[in-house]
């Protein structure tokens, strides 16, 4: 065993010395290789973290949301639908939700106004999301004025700012009480934005949704599992799009690496010839080249992956965030939690380390099996 290890150590020593003879070329290759792994790993880690986070957060979303559709568009829903819905067996609770959008021309951003169910907010007061507080420079006790749909100006006192660590779900939220909401948007009593319901048995959710569409044909139920699926698909899709955008540089690298790894230079051919002439076995030459490929690709993988990990989980994926998060004035500031999918990392490892190592070994095997004299000529 120790003989085997010693032998590999000598081969590695020789390989490193050989790589050092073409220092510039090999360091350049390592740099480009590392950059490619860094780009791929960053996208992968960031989207995986966001996907996992979205799934965990939205597990607490309403089980079923019922929207009324008029002429193919989401419309206000009358409160008496609540009573009609209650007759469906399996529905444990139902309530109306009031929420809407407000475009603030001062910062050219959309806010989401929402009426909380279990939070008491005084008239003329509001609770603001941390993103709005940051953008508008608001703090508790400050006043903010908005022009309502009727043309009158409403002035609200900021009663509280929502926690900064919940910005991913609440950056653009403005919480007001029901009376203020209805007065601000001019929504009459007895109308809601949509309805939410809880189903006693989670296995019956689909059945309840089916019954809903029969009982209330002008409504559209949105299930929690559909919400979760939407976000899962969204991040997969975005990851795919970024990968497509990266495909050009990826292909360029593949051509470069393939050319470097598989096309033997005259100098390398001569080196193999000399090694064989002084008594190296074909297997030793192949082993030496295997170590060359493995050292370069493993080094690039580790460097690229670690740089991506630091980039995503310590610097909030500063390079990719604009593409993956979207484009908005009110941008949530959040640090993704490090969730890692072992299979994804293994896939990245396989597709970055394995092809290069193989590409280095195959042409060497061809050169090393030929006669040293012919190779050196």
């Amino acid at each position, binding site marked *: 065993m120790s003989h085997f290890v010693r032998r590999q150590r000598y081969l590695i020593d020789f390989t490193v*010395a050989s790589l050092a003879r073409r220092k510039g070329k090999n360091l350049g290759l390592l740099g480009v290789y590392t950059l490619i792994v860094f780009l791929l790993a960053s996208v992968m880690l960031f989207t995986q973290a966001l996907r996992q986070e979205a799934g965990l957060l939205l597990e607490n979303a309403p089980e079923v949301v019922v929207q009324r559709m008029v002429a193919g568009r989401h419309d206000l829903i009358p409160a008496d639908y609540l009573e009609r819905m209650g007759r469906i067996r399996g529905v444990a609770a139902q309530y109306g939700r009031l929420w809407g959008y407000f475009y603030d021309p001062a910062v050219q951003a*959309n806010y989401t106004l929402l009426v909380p169910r279990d939070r008491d907010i005084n008239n003329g007061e509001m609770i603001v999301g941390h993103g709005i507080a940051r953008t508008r420079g608001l703090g508790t006790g400050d006043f903010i004025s908005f022009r309502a749909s009727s043309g009158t100006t409403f002035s609200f006192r900021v009663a509280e700012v929502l926690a900064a660590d919940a910005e991913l779900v609440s950056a653009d939220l403005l919480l007001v009480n029901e009376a203020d909401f209805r007065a601000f948007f001019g929504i009459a009593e007895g109308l809601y934005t949509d309805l939410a319901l809880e189903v006693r048995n989670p296995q019956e959710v689909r059945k309840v949704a089916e019954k809903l569409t029969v009982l209330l044909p002008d409504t559209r139920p949105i299930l929690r599992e559909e919400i979760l699926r939407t976000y899962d698909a969204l991040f997969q899709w975005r990851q795919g799009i970024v990968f497509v955008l990266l495909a050009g540089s990826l292909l360029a690298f593949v051509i470069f690496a393939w050319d470097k790894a598989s096309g033997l230079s005259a100098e390398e051919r001569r080196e193999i010839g000399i090694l064989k002439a002084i008594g190296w076995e074909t297997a030793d030459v192949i082993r030496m080249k295997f170590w060359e490929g493995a050292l370069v690709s493993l080094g690039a993988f580790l460097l690229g*992956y670690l740089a991506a990990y630091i980039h995503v989980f310590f610097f909030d994926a500063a390079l990719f965030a604009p593409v993956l998060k*979207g484009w908005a004035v009110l941008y949530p500031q959040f640090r993704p939690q490090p969730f890692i999918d072992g299979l994804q990392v293994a896939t990245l490892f396989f597709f970055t380390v394995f092809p290069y190592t193989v590409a280095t070994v195959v042409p060497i095997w061809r050169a090393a099996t030929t006669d040293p004299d012919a190779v050196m000529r």
Partner: protein
Amino acid sequence: MPAPSAIARPHCPARAGNLPLLLLAAGLLLFAASLLDAAWRGNDSALAGSRALVGELGLTDLALFTEARYTRHLSQADRHTAFQDHPLALDHFPSGSLVPPPARLRQP
């Protein structure tokens, strides 16, 4: 016959592989540390506040794309309706073009 010590040894850097192997080992250790860090920090306790808020307010979407109503509340938007804002209004927000089509359209 010259003494063995008199034979000129070709120049070969002693243990040239030591430094790269040490660096690789350090890289592997850091890789393992990143997995441990993810296992340590990557749990839902850090998200407890946000999760509670989602449950309390009945939130349905992440505030990631606040530029338009159909990107702010992706799961609530009538995404299958063409021309969301007015007839012939093409989607002009980059997020909108990065949102996947409905699942049924992507099924073979």
